[in-house]
């Protein structure tokens, strides 16, 4: 088991495996995205209260889910990096941060584009919105911190610590609509118990959510391949790559 793990976490094998997986991830992403857009924009009926404005949900909610999911991945990678010193964990965290920041910004902006017609305002300082904004600052802080430190190992360790400290914000975001009286609505889709949403709207939501997951996997693999190439540029197998490709 451990020898297997070490074999595949070796940079060379990772680079190859990622290259093999990439077309499948892209294919799954494009298929799910096309279906999600078709069902979300065309098939699903308008909401009886919100009209067609609720269709922003199919971008907003998957983006918000991704913003938290990616941060958890970064925190887990940070823990792995600090405990087992696996180089690949730093690579995963560094490759995730720009995407996480992008999805957080996307969730915030689509949220305010949805909030304007529904709440009458682009922004309120309620618990859900504020904690999501803090998440954006955590991502930006991670990127600034790790890119300010020259040595990759030290940068990785500092970033790992920051992501682990910041992970307390994730349950705060999730439960903010329960703990505080927020303008933001509560969860409509839950893992436990029935979801509070019509099936015709749930299908595109889940399609888009899975599309974003595959997209993340694809971009993560691409970014991680670049990181590996850069970090290993003086090793034999990377030099060979230059000769054969």
């Amino acid at each position, binding site marked *: 088991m451990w020898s297997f793990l070490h074999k595949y976490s070796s940079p060379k094998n990772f680079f190859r495996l990622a290259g093999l997986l990439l077309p499948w991830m892209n294919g799954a992403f494009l298929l799910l995205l096309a279906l999600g857009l078709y069902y979300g924009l065309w098939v699903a009926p308008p909401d009886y209260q919100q009209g067609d404005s609720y269709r*922003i949900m199919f971008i907003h909610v998957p983006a918000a889910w991704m913003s938290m999911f990616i941060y958890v991945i970064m925190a887990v990678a940070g823990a792995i990096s600090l405990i087992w010193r696996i180089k690949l964990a730093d690579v995963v965290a560094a490759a995730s941060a720009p995407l996480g920041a992008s*999805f957080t910004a996307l969730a915030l902006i689509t949220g305010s584009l949805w909030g304007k017609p529904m709440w009458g305002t682009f922004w309120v300082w309620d618990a859900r919105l504020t904690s999501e904004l803090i998440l954006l600052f955590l991502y930006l802080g991670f990127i600034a911190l790790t890119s300010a430190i020259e040595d990759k190992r030290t940068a990785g360790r500092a970033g790992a610590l920051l992501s682990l400290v910041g992970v307390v914000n994730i349950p705060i975001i999730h439960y903010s609509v329960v703990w505080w009286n927020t303008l933001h609505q509560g969860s409509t889709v839950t893992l436990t118990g029935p979801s509070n949403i019509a099936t015709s709207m749930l299908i595109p939501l889940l399609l888009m959510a899975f599309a974003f997951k595959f997209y993340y996997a694809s971009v993560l693999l*691409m*970014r991680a391949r670049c990181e590996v*190439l850069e970090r290993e540029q003086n090793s034999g197998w990377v030099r060979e790559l*230059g000769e054969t*490709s």
Partner: protein
Amino acid sequence: MTLSEFVNMGGYAAYVWPSYALGLVVLIANYIAPRQRERKLLRQLRRRARRDRTGKPNRQARQRNE
């Protein structure tokens, strides 16, 4: 649903379409950036390999020797 109804989004077009457009921009930008970086890195590797083959000392090796 007709096409004009679809474009109009029940009067919410000004909020719905920018959201989808921005989503698309985020997806495309984050996809293109690592692709271009990988292409650039591979180009550098090829250039280095060519220099090594032709026997001319490459710039990094020269800098190391100095």
